[in-house]
Structures are given as C-alpha cells and as structure tokens.
C-alpha cells in the first residue's frame, strides 16, 4: 500500500517534471524563430519533408472521407426527403470538425512520428551533442525550422482536406446519387458562414499543428538515446498527439460554436 502511494507520487512528479521541460523547450523554440527567419532555406527543406510528403495521404483520405459522408448523409437524409441539404451536411462536418481533426491525426501519424524518430536518432547518434560542440545551437538549427514547418503546413493541409472532401462528397452526392447540383452548392453556401465556420476551422488547425509539432519534437528531443527509447518516444508521440488533439478539439468546439 505504502509502495503504491510512493509510486503514485513518483509518477506524478515525473510527469510534472516532463511538462516543465516541455514548456522550457517550447520557450527555446520560440526564441529560435528569429534565427530561422535569417536562414529561410532551413524552413523550406522542412516544409518539404513535413508538408509535401504529407500531401498525398491528406488528399486521398480527404477524398474518401468526403465520399463516405456523401453516401451516409444521402441515405439518412433521403429518409426525410431532405437530400438537398446534403451539401450543408458534408461541408459543415468537414470544415468544422473532420477537416482539422482528421488531418491533424494523419499529420501526427505521418509527419509527427517521422520527426520524433529523426530527432531521437540524431540524439542517439550524438549528432545533437556534436552540434553543441561546434557551438551550433541544435534547437535553433534543427528543432525550430521543423516546428515552424508544422505550424505552416497544418492549416494548408486541413484546408486541402476539407476542399477535396467537399469535392468527393459532391462527386458521390450529385454525380452518383442524383442530388441536384445547384441545390447542393446553394444550400452549402447558405449554410456555411465564412467567419463562424471556415475561420474557426483554420484556427483549430493552427492550434492542432502547434500541439502536434510541439509534442513530436519534444518527445524526440527528450527520448532516451537508445533504439528502444526512440521507438517508445515515437509511440508516445502518436498516442499523446491523438489525445491532445481530440481533447483540445472538444474545448475549442465548446468555445467556438457554443453560443448559437
């Protein structure tokens, strides 16, 4: 029993220490932003590996999610004779929720895990300490460009996801199932508000990009420098990112869409 309480206290202390280190790490990243602006080439390389390489999985998933929404929505709505509102349903669910959330989860799986593994291996092979020996700050040189790349890529990817999804839903809805195309778009434009829906969706995706990149980079930087440590860190990245994204999504939704 005493042992149990001791372990509980220990694990609480360990997790708070970790949160403290993560916050300190975030401050270091933010102070490194100025040095990235001087060398935009570093950011460009990371935009390639974080953004461009996630492009394909995001667009293909977006297309399929939109198509499934079109099918499922049609079957449910046609029971009430309200097939014309399919456009609003597909667009609202994509722009408000699925676009930011699913693309953030895919981003954490595709780019986040890669970032953790890369930085964990850099640490394990002592590249980071090598840089410190040469008086190069690894946070400024390695971490911050990756963080900024994640922050920039995420809203773009979420926007793409929603856009491709809506096109997918339109393909299924009016192409295959015969919902009137004019009604589909007109109802959508009447039901979706630019500020309430689209801007809030973009804000969500920026927040998710921030949190997913932060977790991925911190887990890599904080990994135990062995092959097992790196593998554990990669797992933690995906699990913690998914938890944080879904939890934050609930809070953001309650804040943004609560009053109407």
């Amino acid at each position, binding site marked *: 029993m005493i042992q149990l309480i001791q372990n509980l206290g220990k694990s609480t202390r360990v997790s708070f220490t970790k949160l403290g280190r993560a916050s300190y790490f975030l401050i270091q990243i933010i102070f490194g932003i100025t040095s990235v602006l001087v060398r935009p*080439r570093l950011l*460009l*390389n990371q*935009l*390639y590996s974080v*953004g*461009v390489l996630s*492009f394909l999985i995001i667009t293909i998933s977006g297309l399929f999610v939109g198509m499934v929404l079109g099918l499922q929505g049609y079957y449910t709505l046609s029971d009430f004779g309200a097939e014309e509102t399919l456009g609003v349903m597909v*667009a609202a669910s994509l*722009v408000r929720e699925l676009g930011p959330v699913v693309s953030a989860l895919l981003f954490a799986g595709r780019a986040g895990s890669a970032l953790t593994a890369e930085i964990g291996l850099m640490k394990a092979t002592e590249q980071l300490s090598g840089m410190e020996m040469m008086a190069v700050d690894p946070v400024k040189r390695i971490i911050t460009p990756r963080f900024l790349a994640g922050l*920039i*890529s995420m*809203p*773009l*990817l979420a*926007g*793409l*996801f*929603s*856009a*491709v999804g*809506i096109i997918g839903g339109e393909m299924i809805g009016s192409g295959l199932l015969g919902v009137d195309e004019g009604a589909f*778009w007109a109802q*959508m*434009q*009447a039901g*979706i*508000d*630019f500020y309430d*829906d*689209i801007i809030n969706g*973009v804000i969500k995706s920026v927040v998710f990009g921030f949190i997913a990149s932060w977790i991925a980079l911190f887990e890599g930087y904080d990994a135990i420098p062995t092959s097992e440590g790196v593998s554990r860190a990669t797992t933690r990245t995906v699990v913690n990112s998914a938890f944080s994204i879904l939890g934050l999504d609930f809070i953001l939704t309650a804040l943004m869409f609560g009053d109407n």
Partner: protein
Amino acid sequence: MQHTTTQDTLVGLFVASGIAGLFFLALHVSNLSSFSDQDSYVITARFENSGGLKVKSPVSAAGVKIGKVTSISFDTKTYESVVQMNIDAKYNTLPDDTTASIFTAGLLGEQYVNLEPGGSEEYLKPNGKIEITQSAIILEKAIGQFLFKSAEEKK
C-alpha cells in the same frame, strides 16, 4: 542537405494548392461571395412580436434574398421588438410604404422577414423606418385561438 530546384518547386506547389484549397472554401463553399456587409444600408422595423426571428435570418422581397437581420432588441418603452436589417445597396429603390412581415419558410422552417413594396413614389432612405409591419404567426397562439373559437361555437 540537398538543395534541389525540384524540391523548391514541390514546396511551392504544396503551398499554392493549400492556399487554393482555403480560397475554394472561402469563395465557393461559404457565403462570403454571395453577400458582403460593405455595400449595404440599414433599415429598422418595429414588430409587435418577432417570434423565432434570429440575427442573420434572411430578408427577402418577392422571394429573393436582399439582405439579413443584424440585430433584434426589445424596446422597454413601447414593448415592441426592434429589428434592424442590412439591405444590399443594389436594392435601394424600396418605396417608403413597404410592409415588413415575418413569415416562416415551410411549415417548420426558419423565419424570415418579407418586404412587400407599396405604391409610394418616395424611396426608403438609409436608416429609414418601416411603418407598416405584421408580426410573426405564433403557432401555439393560432392553435389556442382556434380551439377557443370552436369551443365557443359548440355552446
């Protein structure tokens, strides 16, 4: 670290397609293109009862959407509902004896303001007031009146 032009091109394409996606959402999916707040003027109407009318409810004339409701408030002196509407600047030739009524789209649909132009030569000015209004039909009230009436008839 390889600095290839192909990589730069791909990054450029990625950013461009991301921005294109966001533009598509803004212009083609949302109501941003169909109605803007800039070119519009305000008119007010007082209703005895504005029912389920909400901010952003459409304002239409002859079935065409020409504006939207921007605010609904309660006048503490006259106990009326004061409804402010933004009308698209294109439609600035509404006569000043226009009637405003609150209708329901379909049996259970959302409520909207319908403007019925009168025969006056004068046009409604910006910040103008609509004098003749017709309140929302409250379904419960109508049913209550109907029941009361049929009970009276039976006596």
